[in-house]
């Protein structure tokens, strides 16, 4: 399966991904409606784009009381608009904070990988966001996880 690979170190904070995503969502250039967000850590001079990781065990799906989040052919977890009742439970359940609600409809909105051709990855000028082949969701995330885990062990020993 293909998945989004995000490498914050390559990000320059240009917001091309937010622009591209909002174009898909709204037909306008409107970063406030983007489903990928670039977090800016000014004092660290670092930028981190983040969006839905398409978890294998998707808590947003589990939390939804009306089964309004389904899985499409590309393994993306997608909100089924007609079913969503706007209860916001999925936004609370997501550990990464990547499910949003749209102010106009009050319904949930999340990354659906643009049906298999994510606009953010295409738009990114530095390859900080790529759409790559992988075994399971968050594959590329492992290195980072290992790093955090070793820091945790260090801290625990002290």
């Amino acid at each position, binding site marked *: 399966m293909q998945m989004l690979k995000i490498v914050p170190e390559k990000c*320059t*904070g*240009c*917001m*091309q991904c937010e*622009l*591209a995503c*909002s*174009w898909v969502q*709204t*037909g*306008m*250039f*409107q*970063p*406030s*409606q983007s489903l990928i967000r670039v977090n800016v850590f*000014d*004092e*660290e*001079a*670092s930028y981190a784009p983040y969006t839905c990781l398409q978890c294998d065990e998707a808590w947003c799906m589990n939390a939804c009381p009306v089964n309004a989040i389904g899985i499409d052919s590309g393994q993306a977890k997608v909100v089924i608009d007609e079913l969503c009742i706007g209860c916001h439970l999925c936004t609370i359940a997501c550990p990464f904070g990547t499910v949003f609600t749209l102010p106009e409809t009050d319904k949930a909105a999340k990354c659906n990988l643009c049906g298999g051709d994510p606009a953010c990855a295409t*738009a990114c*000028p*530095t390859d900080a966001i790529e759409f790559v082949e992988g075994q399971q969701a968050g594959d590329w995330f492992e290195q980072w996880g290992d790093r955090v885990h070793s820091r945790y062990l260090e801290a625990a020993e002290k």
Partner: protein
Amino acid sequence: MIKQATGGWTGKILRVDLTSGKSSVEPVPEDWMHDYVGGRGLADRYLYEEMDPTVDPYAPENKMIFATGPLTGTPVPCGARYMVVTKGALTNCITTSNSGGHWGPELKFAGYDLLILEGRAPKPSYLLIYDDRVEVKDASEYWGKGVFETEDGLRDELGIPNLRVACIGPAGENLVRFACIMNDKHRAAGRSGVGAVMGSKNLKAIAVRGTQGVPIAEPEAFMKALWEMRAAMDDNPGKKAFNDFGTAATIDLTQTFGALPTRNFQEGQFEDFEKLNGVAIRDTRMVATKACFACTIACGRVTRLGEFSDKFMVNMHPRNWKQAGEGPEYEAAWALGPDTGVGDLDAVIKANWLCNDLGMDPISMGSTLASAMELYEKGVITDDQVEMPLKFGSADALVRMTEATAYREGFGDELAEGAKRMGDKLKHPEVFMGSKGQEFPAYDPRGFQGMGVAYATCNRGACHLRAWTPAIESSGDADPHSTEGKSEWVVEEQNKSTTHDATGVCLFVGFAGATIELMVPLVAAATGVPYTVDEFVHIGERTWNLERLWNLKAGMTKADDSLPKRLLEEPHKSGPSKGVTVNLDAMLPIYYEERGWDSEGVPSKEKLTELGLGSL
């Protein structure tokens, strides 16, 4: 029949009367949008219509216009720019000061093409714009604070994480003549003293949050043109060089041509240039590259002093000790480096950091200090006037005087007036290196002859961004020391760059493979107005002439299209530009003729009629 605009522009103007705190929203006349594209052009038109050019820059009658273009806030590479148009505190001319970052797009997302500020707030205030919500609020808590603290403070106070802030530092409050407006902490509408004008209005900051979208009139054509431009820029060597080395790579270029002004233009090459160039910054002090909104180049350098040097850590707020700052870019690296003779990169980074935090234009800061250093070494400025010796090459003097200038402490009070006013006061006007009261940027016209006529004729005083003649003079297309063809090229380039400014796209895309032929279809598709390249150049010419008319009404004459004696009469004694002086007398008449102006530099009736300005 003009087609109704359906995209690119918002078609709305936000007008705020700071005296009363009242605001209103009004539509932009459609013919003005078409005739001036937006940004700089449209703002020029408003300023011409609404303001008496003879008023003092600090008077409440001086208006400030913050203008976005039709491509600001779109993914067109580097569509991040906004323009501040007002009467410059430094120049007394119309000024058009441009900045990137994220603030301009945010104003567009809030729903406005232009923001017009009028009057003067009765007490220190800031302006909050959150879409339709517009409030003038008390800023007494931020008055006196630096740019970084102000931006962080406003974000905390208002609790809006995505808030974008444009503000002035202490320099703007203290009416330093070359104070700038800083946005997103490190980006500056830098030149001509727009920050001092904002300070005179008691306006500390403009905080903006916008959640609306920029619609596009012809989506398919737009996306096609967008990817054509992206493709043209992708493997461009200029783009790669900007990304690798930042703009400071230009130091090597100007050094090679003997056009790197050194020690207040007394020399054309700097012995320590390799300590300050793009390679030095990248290899020794850079922690990240940074892009403005929608920028695919990322020429921004994030540099850090703390881990490398503690020499210039004094007076820094503890919270900022390890904080990264942006820059220096080429102009700042030159003004604070070669022009003052300082070859210490840490001092240059620190002085640049101070300029950003205190809100000052590093070009004018460095150049004014260089003039003072020349006078000090010649014995005109004596030790009892200054707190420390102002010797060329003194890193300590550079850092300390930068700070003293922003707060107008001691001799900093004189520096704060800019090199022209300082030179006049000390009865040595010859040390001022600039034109129309504004200090030159980093190209010595004795090395690049064309810059001479570009500087002398620029509507906002000496400027490198209206016609960058090294483009032809360093590439072998034109002899850098000859006057031949320069005036003609400058006229054409000034016209092109003026409309480019109006679109809201950074001029740097032109150095990174995006030609005007690639830009025009984007503006046409975004706005739905079928602009052509010829029309684009024509609009630039119209805008340029409008600015000229404004300046003539403000009292400028042919005498202001001038250069200092040093450039006209004193050649460099060594280096590649040895023996060359600027032959402005040869270039200026051709320039006037090319422009369709009379021998006094006044646009002819025919020219104005041709440009649709006949009634002005």
